[in-house]
């Protein structure tokens, strides 16, 4: 006889676990879920807040920074334009995340459910990537302005073009390494969180080949 048929015979008989009563089940409804969707949700909220703070705190807390920034962007239109741009990007991400969370449904097929979760994770990933690129770019632009316009820096170092070139390279490499490290940290974070999901998703995909 087929092994599974033997198991089938026994399958419905087994009741190892104690049967729960209505009273046991009620409190379960109000407990907190610990699903990966919940975790992803918290991470995305943290992500949004973190990057908004990173980009606004220096401006509002340091007068020096504000005056410097105002000097760099002598034109108010540019500064306003940039602000509008970055806030609309954030708004777009919030909208996409919201839509994508809404589409996660536990009553879909397993494959569809996994795809919706992976899509949500991708949106968070792009948001982080966007922020990292912006941080990198603004640091590099800041460096360029500092070296070419700030008399303090150029006087102290008494810089010639070769020196400026070398310093720039070193700083850019440094920024790139920091950004890469943050990126790796994210990879690890999501990797751990979604390890099982990814494994099962690949297993399902393998079936379709």
């Amino acid at each position, binding site marked *: 006889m087929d092994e*599974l048929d033997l*198991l089938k015979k026994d399958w419905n008989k087994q009741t190892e676990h104690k049967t729960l009563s209505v009273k046991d089940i009620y409190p379960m409804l109000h407990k907190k879920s610990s699903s990966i969707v919940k975790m992803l949700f918290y991470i995305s909220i943290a992500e949004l807040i973190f990057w908004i703070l990173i980009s606004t705190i220096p401006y509002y807390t340091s007068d020096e920074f504000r005056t410097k920034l105002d000097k760099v962007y002598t034109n108010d239109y540019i500064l306003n334009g940039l602000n509008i741009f970055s806030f609309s990007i954030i708004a777009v991400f919030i909208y996409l995340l919201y839509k994508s969370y809404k589409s996660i449904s536990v009553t879909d097929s397993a494959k569809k*459910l996994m795809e919706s979760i992976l899509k949500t994770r991708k949106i968070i990933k792009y948001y982080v990537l966007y922020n990292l690129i912006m941080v990198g770019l603004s640091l590099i632009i800041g460096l360029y302005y500092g070296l070419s316009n700030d008399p303090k820096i150029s006087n102290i170092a008494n810089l010639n073009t070769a020196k400026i070139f070398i310093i720039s390279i070193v700083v850019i490499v440094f920024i790139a390494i920091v950004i890469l490290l943050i990126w790796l940290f994210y990879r690890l974070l999501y990797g751990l969180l979604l390890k099982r999901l990814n494994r099962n998703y690949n297993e399902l995909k393998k079936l379709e080949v």
Partner: protein
Amino acid sequence: MNKELEHSFVELLEKHQNIVHKVCRLYTNNYDAHNDLFQEITIQLWRAYPKFRGDAKFSTWMYRVGLNTAITLYRKSKRTIKTQEFEGVAFKMKAEYYDDTEEEQLKVLYKAVHQLNDIEKALVFLYLEDKDYREISETLGISEVNARVKMNRIKTKLKTILNP
């Protein structure tokens, strides 16, 4: 959520709880983990319940939510001890398998099923629950042909685990 909805849900779940217990039995291997997964499946069922429409059978709907929670949403809690229980099964197996009492055979079979991966377990579960390949394919989101092929492979795999 209103009380009436809550009440009808809890009563339905109480009646059909065995389905959830069976999912838990397949995907966990100790008491705490079983309860943990049961809890999570209950939450997911409850959340999805307002959208549950009577045209699907409650039990059928439960299979889907239960399996989806087990293979996709559930994060094993820290309490879940990675049991070593199933290690060395292959060694013991041979001796046990030739013990011809059915009970012993079943024990070995359950252990072998526990060694399968999450997706294979889902297929076995639906098969044991007498679901046809159409329902299996719809629940997992794969084609019927592929569900059938995979099921045959699992049967072979189980044979090899049982008769190394």
